[in-house]
């Protein structure tokens, strides 16, 4: 590896990726792309690994994806210059596409008649048809409710548009023109990547550029292995749960992480529940998939911050989820609301990492990916208008050297909130409150991140509120090394009024004129012994109105008189012996569940059910659980 050329070309590759992403973003059409930046443009090697990936705009978490599975559906030998492949099919292409709303494009980059790279782009399409506007409903249970689906095919052949393919798509979307505008913007980015790659080859020589591609990927792998060698070799297991939308059902997620000598890691989700009849499934295919190792990838980028951002990072990682599990779903599973399931896998993997990294890394975060949207009919035009209100997440877990992030969890820490003034100008809602909720942060040496609280009052005629990604209304985020578990979320309609009722995990809700919706997110778990927390930090939270004096005493063993810490009383209180806490504090709801369904039993049941025909699995699992609940 040339020490100078590798660094120069790494910069070159980063520059063209950022440039192409900027060009695509600048000319895109839809709010999804423009405001939430749910799109990306990047370049992959012939083997499918990304070597030029933007980090300043667009979705940054796809860098360890691989495009080769989609290419192979078509056949690399059949491609000619000017071809562009399109697909939004999660059931083919080895899980490059993970739900139908993501439209992926691939353009082979030719140099002297040979393919030297693949330019790639995707957009989260704002509508691809299906049961509801936007195509995502958390309670959809079949892919057919989630819009049109196109297996990998050529949108362009040698520069010629395949009108049959596009017309088919256009006839099945509510907003085909806007989607076409976004795709054109992405294709401008692809063309620029093609041009820039050819310019690099002309300037430095094609063999030299291809060697540099190999070198920067190898550097990514080398840095990743360096980071992973910080983990203690061994096998680690951890489970976590998703909640059903109706009743008290649960979904079992189980991760087994094997850390090997030499800085490699394997993750296995065998024993997790099969596909559910909700839009909470996703696909991960046969290769190592980033959705099954996100905390490990983040760990690498945290421990070795100069790791080049490319597909080499995932080389030392293997992942496996049996086909038919919720995280490697089969046709015709629904996936629109998959991100909350990705987050729960994140939590389970974090549980394993905490065992493998001496001293642990972080307690569990709020673990939901709430996105609140409001839809109302415009009083003048009669048209229905959908606005995103706010992301609604909750705090992250306490970390080994810092408190949890307040109001936001690590896997979605890229989300931006909207000003209340903008929300109120665009909807008939009044935000009565959007703030932290005091008193719910889990105590710890480093406390968990605060919950968010939102109060929405509807001043219009009738407004439909949809919230996807909510979870953890029962099963609390785990605390680590003596830190307390986080708080669960809650939702109340018309608090303080006669009609007040607790409505739990909602997906769609009609708010009548004057109705108020109060929602509180989960909070992150605590890290480490709260009785070892610096009393000055506890006092600061009391003075800031985020903690009561009573809670300071009970949760942290800190005695506060007025505006000062009573050091003697604190020392005395803290000196009282307490039982040694378990490594993980999981909270009473999960304890009760696991008394009935120990983890080993849940794993065995899931594996047994997976052996049945796919169509029978959810019914059989429900039946087994009903029977189990009936037997004392």
């Amino acid at each position, binding site marked *: 590896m040339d*020490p*100078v050329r590798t*660094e*120069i070309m*790494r*910069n*070159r590759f980063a*520059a063209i990726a*950022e*440039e*192409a992403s*900027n060009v695509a973003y*600048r*000319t895109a*059409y839809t*709010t999804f792309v*423009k*405001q939430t930046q749910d799109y990306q443009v990047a370049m992959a090697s012939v083997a499918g690994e990304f070597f030029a990936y933007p980090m300043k705009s667009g979705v*940054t978490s796809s860098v360890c994806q691989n495009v080769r599975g989609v290419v192979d559906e078509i056949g690399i030998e059949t491609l000619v210059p000017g071809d562009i492949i399109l697909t939004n099919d999660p059931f083919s292409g080895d899980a490059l596409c993970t739900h139908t709303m993501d439209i992926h494009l691939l353009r082979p980059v030719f140099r002297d008649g040979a393919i030297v790279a693949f330019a790639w782009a995707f957009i989260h399409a704002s509508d691809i048809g299906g049961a509801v506007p936007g195509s995502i409903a958390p309670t959809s249970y079949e892919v057919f409710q989630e819009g049109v689906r196109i297996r990998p095919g050529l949108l362009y052949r040698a520069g010629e548009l395949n009108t049959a393919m596009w017309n088919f798509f256009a006839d099945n979307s509510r907003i085909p023109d806007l989607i076409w*505008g976004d795709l054109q913007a992405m294709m*401008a980015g692809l063309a620029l990547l093609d041009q820039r790659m050819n310019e690099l080859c002309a300037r430095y020589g094609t063999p030299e550029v291809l060697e540099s591609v190999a070198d920067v990927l190898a*550097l990514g792998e080398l*840095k990743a292995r360096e980071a992973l060698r910080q983990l203690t070799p061994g096998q680690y297991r951890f489970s976590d749960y998703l909640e059903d939308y109706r009743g008290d059902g649960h979904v079992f997620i189980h991760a087994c992480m094997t850390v090997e000598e030499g800085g490699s890691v394997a993750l296995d989700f065998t024993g997790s529940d099969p596909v559910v009849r909700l839009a909470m499934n996703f696909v991960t295919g046969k290769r190592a998939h980033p959705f099954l190792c996100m*905390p490990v*990838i*983040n*760990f690498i*980028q*945290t421990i070795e*911050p*100069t790791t080049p951002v490319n597909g080499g990072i995932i080389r030392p990682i293997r992942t496996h989820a049996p086909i038919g599990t919720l995280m490697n779903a089969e046709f015709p599973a629904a996936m629109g609301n998959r991100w909350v399931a990705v987050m729960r896998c994140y939590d389970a993997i974090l549980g394993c990492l905490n065992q493998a990294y001496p001293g642990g*890394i972080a307690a569990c975060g709020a673990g939901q990916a709430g996105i609140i949207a409001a839809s109302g009919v415009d009083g003048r035009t009669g048209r229905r*208008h959908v606005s995103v209100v706010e*992301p609604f997440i909750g705090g992250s877990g306490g970390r080994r*050297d*810092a408190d949890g*992030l*307040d*109001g*936001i969890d*690590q896997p*979605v*820490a890229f*989300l*931006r*909130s909207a000003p*209340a*003034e*903008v929300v*109120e*100008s665009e909807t008939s809602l*009044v935000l009565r*409150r*959007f*703030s*932290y909720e005091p008193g719910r942060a889990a105590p710890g040496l480093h406390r968990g991140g605060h919950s968010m609280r939102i*109060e929405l009052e509807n001043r219009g005629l009738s407004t439909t509120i949809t919230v996807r990604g909510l979870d953890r209304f029962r099963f609390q985020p785990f605390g680590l090394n003596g830190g307390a578990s986080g708080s669960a979320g809650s939702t109340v309609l018309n608090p303080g009024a006669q009609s007040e009722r607790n409505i739990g995990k909602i997906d769609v809700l009609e708010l009548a004129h004057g109705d108020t919706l109060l929602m509180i997110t989960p909070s992150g778990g605590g890290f480490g012994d709260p009785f070892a927390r610096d009393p000055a930090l506890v006092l600061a939270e009391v*003075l*800031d*109105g985020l903690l009561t004096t009573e809670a300071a005493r009970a949760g942290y063993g800190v005695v506060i008189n007025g505006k000062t810490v009573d050091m003697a009383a604190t020392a005395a209180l803290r000196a009282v012996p307490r039982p040694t806490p378990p490594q993980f504090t999981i909270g009473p709801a999960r304890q009760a569940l696991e008394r009935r369904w120990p983890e080993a039993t849940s794993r065995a049941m899931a594996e047994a059910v997976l052996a049945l025909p796919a169509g029978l699995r959810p019914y059989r699992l429900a039946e087994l659980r009903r029977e189990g609940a009936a037997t004392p």
Partner: protein
Amino acid sequence: MIRIGIDIGGTFTDFAVWAGEAAGYTAVHAMKVPSTPPDFAAGVQNGLEKLLAEGRIAADDPMLIVHGTTVSTNAVIERSGPPLALLVTAGFRDVLDVARLRVDRPVDLFARRAPPIIPRRMVFEIGERILADGSIDRALDTAEVVAAAQAAIAQGAAAIAVCFLHAYRNPAHEAAAAAAIRDALGAVDVVLSHEVWPQQSEYERASAALLNAYARRALSGYLAALESWLAHRLPNARLLVTKSNGGVMAAAEATRMPIHTLLSGPAAGVTAAQALGAMLGEANLLTMDMGGTSTDISLIRDGGIMVSHDGRVGDFPLMMPVTAIEAIGAGGGSIAWRDGPVLKVGPRSAGARPGPACYGKGGTQPTVSDAYLLCGYLREDIPLAGGLTLRRDLAEAVVAPLAAAIGRTVEATAEAIIAVATANMLANALPFIARLGVAPAELTLMIFGGAGAIHGPLLAAEIGIGRVVVPRLASVFCGYGCLVSDLRYDVIRTVHGRTLAAADVASTFAELRAEAESWLTAQASAAIPGYDYAADVRYAGQSFDVAARITPEAAAAGDLAAIAAAFHAEHERLYGHAHPGQAIEIIALRLRIEGALPRPGAVALPPGTEAAPPRPVRARFDGAERDVGLHDWASLPPFWSAPGPLLVAQETATVVVPPGFTATIGTFGDLILERS
């Protein structure tokens, strides 16, 4: 009228002096004196005394002194201001800490959000509510306001900022709160968000109110001291202060609204580039200001400065229009190191202290400047500004271990360090240019600042820019920017959600015009103002808007069709598509007013004599030591020209002309490099 531009840096305070109407750009005098931190005023006074002693100015000359200051900026970045309090609408006590929720590096498991400028205990919720349409939902309880203010002052608050929801639409509650506090508690410093910048977005507006209070504490004492010194020593001098939008304002206005100074330092350099570009007929420029720890780049397109609405100072946002500048973490002090198998440069920097090893001030790590010296771009026989002589032996000693580690000679390693630094800059500069929709080949690079003249041409060669301008005044370029800045004021009204008739637009623009003109009058300007009207517009249902510029006549008439036409055209220009059939929404109306001040004009240099012959020296290009000529800039007459590689020495800086470029002295004495 004499005009003096003064720009304060960490090491030097730069002066650019223009003797008045008769003389042009080519007669502007450059001078540097040492800065005197932390009391920067002393350096300014020293410089003015020196100008008096040299007879360049007389004590009773009428003069305009235009001052760029970082006193307020430093206070914000270092968070060295006094405790402040904030009053907010009930339900929004965490507005500062929640900010816009996201963290900067989401992949970092230990990422943190910057702490707010004041703690939660200094934020007080007030039971009041104004809705998006400006109607009052819950009346203000002034007794509650006074109680909160008393509590804040009891906790040590030096000033009280107020940010209530939708105050940009209806400021009644903020105004009533201020009146109640002053009635009850006397002369309390109260800052209202709608007075600082009345734009929708409560977090950014609350931050602006607090930053203004913060900066005022830092700046007002400094300016008052300077003004009283001037009144005594230079009684006919008027003091103006540079703004983040590239304009200037009176010192009294800077004390009232110091928030507008926070990004003024780098903005002055861009204004200077715009002025020089106009003289040279260069309408599309990439500007590059390279210092010890970072490099600022900006763009001038069709003669206009690029404006940003999401500036940042320290950890805080600025949403008023400011000159768009991208800071890159690469400078002459950036440290070269080995990261596993590869050579990296930065982001750590040796800074001003200890500085690069070759400065002989205790630097022990190889920096980009050490590499310049080893490649022959900086020279032992040309001292830096301030008289510092560089030492090649020290540079060699710190680069040698790195060279051994990567298996190259010391000189080849030095060249590699420069190449990697160039690649770092390129990785930031190319996306910045792309974001603004420009191709590098359309641009001319204008370089200034300490290391810019060395590295700029190398970057131009790498990035595909064919033309480079090194201004004659490159070493005091921000000071020159102070000489060519005009009075400039931006004003905005948010109208998001309102249904606007032509009469509403016309009356709103009339209000903006009255406010802007009264501002201009208050700066004691006699100039005929220039007006730049615009509307922020979007397609209905979208969430990003575009500034559509309209004529004063269209603004006065409230011409909605003209606004729509300008919007569709601008959308087409920026994004390559427009939809004239689609409904649009107007989000805000804006006006920028400008009052021209006298500035040096384009007077050509007289024809010169023969250029002195260059001194033969050795310098490294493209992997080999070469014999090149070292030319003395001062001896080069207009229209002198020679092909690179060569070096041109100014008093305190060296210009590197790489192979493939030809250097020419332009009409006004600037050095112009052109790809052959």
